[in-house]
C-alpha cells in the first residue's frame, strides 16, 4: 500500500530548478532512502513534503489525501515527523521539554485551560509524560532527561532529535542525514535504531543519507537523485550499479557515454 505519493514535484528558486519533476511512492513499512550528490535536491524534497517550501508544481499525497496545500504546522498531526540535517532542537529547553513538544500535535487542552492547570491539563500532561518515557526507554536517553540541549554533545542531540520525532507517533518518519556528524559507533547505533523503528514500532522511514554502509544495511529501496531529477530507483545494489549513478558520483567522460 502506498503511504506517501509524490507526483511530478518541482520547485524553482529563481532560475534554479532545485527539484525538477520528481515522482516516487513510498510503501507502508519500508525504509526508503534518497541518495545523490550535494545539491541534488534531497533535503529540498524533505522540505517540500514537510510543507516548509511551496512547490512550483506537482502533488504530494499522504494516505491518499492531497497535502500539497496544507500549512506546515498541520503536517505533524497527520503523522509525518521529521528530523533536520543540522539538528533543529530547542536549545534552551531540557530533553524532556523537547520531547514533550513532540506531543504538541496530540494536545487536547488550550492556552486558556493552561492558565489554570486544572485536572484535565494535569491528566493530559501525565499521559504525555508516560508516552515520552517509552521513547526515552527505546532510545536509552535515561541519563539526559533533565539536561539542557545546549549542554549536550552532538551525538546525543542527534538521538534526542530522533526521539522528539518519535514522540509525535508518526506513521512516516523523514530522517535528514541521520548519520551526519556521528562517529562509527554512533552510526552503527543509529542503523540499529532505524531498523528497530521499522520492525518494532512499524513506522515507515524515508531518509536522506550519504553513508553507503548505512544505506545498504537498512534500506529496502533507494532512489538516486541528480540535479533535481530521478536517475535511478531500486534495491541498494541495483542503484549502486546503475551507470548514471556512478557517473553522477564519480563523473564520467561525456564523449564516452555518448558513444556508448
Amino acid at each position: 500500500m502506498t503511504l506517501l505519493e509524490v507526483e511530478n514535484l518541482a520547485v524553482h528558486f529563481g532560475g534554479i530548478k532545485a527539484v525538477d519533476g520528481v515522482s516516487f511512492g513510498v510503501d507502508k513499512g519500508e525504509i526508503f532512502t534518497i541518495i545523490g550528490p550535494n545539491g541534488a535536491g534531497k533535503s529540498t524534497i524533505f522540505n517540500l513534503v514537510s510543507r516548509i517550501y511551496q512547490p512550483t508544481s506537482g502533488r504530494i499525497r499522504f494516505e491518499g489525501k492531497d497535502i500539497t496545500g496544507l500549512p506546515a504546522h498541520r503536517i505533524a498531526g497527520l503523522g509525518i515527523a521529521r528530523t533536520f540535517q543540522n539538528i533543529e532542537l530547542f536549545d534552551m529547553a531540557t530533553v524532556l521539554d523537547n520531547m514533550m513538544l513532540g506531543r504538541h500535535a496530540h494536545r487536547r487542552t488550550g492556552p486558556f485551560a493552561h492558565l489554570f492547570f486544572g485536572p484535565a491539563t494535569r491528566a493530559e500532561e501525565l499521559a504525555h509524560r508516560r508516552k515520552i518515557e517509552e521513547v526515552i526507554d527505546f532510545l536509552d536517553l535515561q541519563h539526559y532527561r533533565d539536561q539542557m540541549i545546549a549542554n549536550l554533545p552532538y551525538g546525543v542531540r542527534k538521538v534526542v532529535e530522533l526521539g522528539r520525532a518519535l514522540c509525535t507517533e508518526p506513521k512516516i518518519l523523514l530522517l535528514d542525514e541521520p548519520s551526519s556528524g556521528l562517529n562509527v559507533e554512533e552510526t552503527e547505533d543509529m542503523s540499529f535504531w532505524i531498523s528497530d523503528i521499522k520492525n518494532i514500532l512499524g513506522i515507515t522511514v524515508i531518509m536522506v543519507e550519504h553513508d553507503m554502509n548505512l544505506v545498504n544495511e537498512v534500506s529496502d529501496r533507494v532512489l538516486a537523485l541528480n540535479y533535481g531529477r530521478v536517475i535511478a530507483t531500486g534495491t541498494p545494489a541495483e542503484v549502486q550499479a546503475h551507470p548514471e549513478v556512478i557517473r553522477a558520483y564519480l563523473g564520467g567522460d561525456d564523449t564516452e557515454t555518448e558513444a556508448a
Partner: protein
Amino acid sequence: MRFLFKTDYAQDTRLFPFGGTKRFWSGLALYAAILAALAHYAPVALTSTHWLGLAIVYAVAFGAVLLRQNADGEGGHAAFWYGLLGVAALSAPFVLDLYFLSQITFVYVYAIAGVGLILLLGMCGQISLGHAAFMACGAYTAALLQAQGFDLLVTLPAAILLSALLGVVIGLPALRMTGIYLAFATYAFAFIVEEVLARWDGLTGGNMGFVLSDPSILGYTFDSEQKMYYLAMVLFALTLLAGLNIRRSSTGRAFMAIRDSETAAEAMGVNLAVYKTTAFAISAGMAGLAGAVYAHLLFFISPEGFTILLSINLLVLAVIGGLASMHGAIFGAAFIVVLPQLISLTKDSLPPVVGQLPGLESGIFGLVIILFVILEPMGLHGRWMKIKTYFQLFPLYKRGTFRRQKSYMVSEKNR
C-alpha cells in the same frame, strides 16, 4: 537516582517538586516564632480578628507545605521556603511602616507586568516596547468603569480582557517581524496609544488626567495602604501562578519552541501565528492587570504616566531580573523600585555638579543595563542561582559551571 530510574511522573508537572518531612518541625517552630514576633513588635494592636485571620493563613501556608511532602522526605524543599516567604509577605503590613509598605506594593504591581513581559520576551522570544500602552489600557479601562460605578470584580477582568485584545492586535505584526523591527512596530503602537489618550479628552480627561476613588469588591472598600498591599499581593501571586502554569504546560513549551527554532516548532505542529498572538495576548493581559492596580494605587492617571520610559523600565525589569525564570520578575521589580530611591537618597550627598545633573537617573539605569548584559546576561535570578549552586557544591564549585559551550553551527535555517 532520577537519572537512571523512572520516577513519579507527577513530579515533572508539579509546581513545587518536593516538600520535606525533616522541615516539618523546624517549619512549625519558625512560623510560631514569626507569629510571636508579630505580636510583640507590631505597630498596630492586633485584635482577635487579626489573630483569627493570621492563624487561618498560617494554617493554609503550612498545609501547602505538608501536602507537597515527598514520601521519603528527600530532595529540595521549595514549598517550605515559599511558605515562609508567603508568611513573611503576609506579615509585612503588621511590621513595616506605610512608606515601605507602599513601596513593596509597587514592587508587586511592576512584578505583575514583569511576569507578562518575561513570558513574552524570555519564553516566546518576542520583544515589545509597547507594554506601557497595555498598562495604560488596563489603567484607563479600570478608571472609566469605576467611574460608572462598577467594582473590582468587573473592572479588573475588563481591564485584562481589553488589554489582551489590544495585545492580539499588536501581536499581528509579530507574525511577520522579528527583533528590532518588532521593537519599532510595538514602539510606534505605544506612541499612538499615548497620543490617543492625550487627545481624546472627552473620554480620558486628556492631559488633565483622571482621578480614581478607592476600589471596592462587593461593598468591601480597599481604603488603606495595608488593604491595597494585600490586594496587589494576591493579584501578583495569581499572576505568577498563571505564568508558571503556562510554563509547565504545552502552551509554554510551544512558546519556547518558537523562541529557539521556528522551523522545528512548525514541524512539531505549533501554529506560529496562533501561539505568537496568544503570547502577546497573555502578556498584554497581565500588563493590563498591572495597569489597573497601578491606577488604583496612584489615584490619578494621565498619559504622562504611560510613556516609552515606562516600557523601557519594564524591559529593564525583565532583563535585570532574568529572562530565564518567572522569579526574575520580582527581583527586577524590586530593582526598578529601589534604584530610583537609592539615587535620590545619595543625590544630596553627592557634589552638586553630579547630583543636580538632569537625566542622572536614566543615565544610571542605562549604565546598569549595559553592565548586566555584559556581566550577567541571566539577570539577578541567574546570579542567585549561581550563589545557590556555589554553596550547594561548596568545595567543588568550578568557575566554568555556568559557562555555556558554543552552540554548534546551524548553517541552513529554513526561514
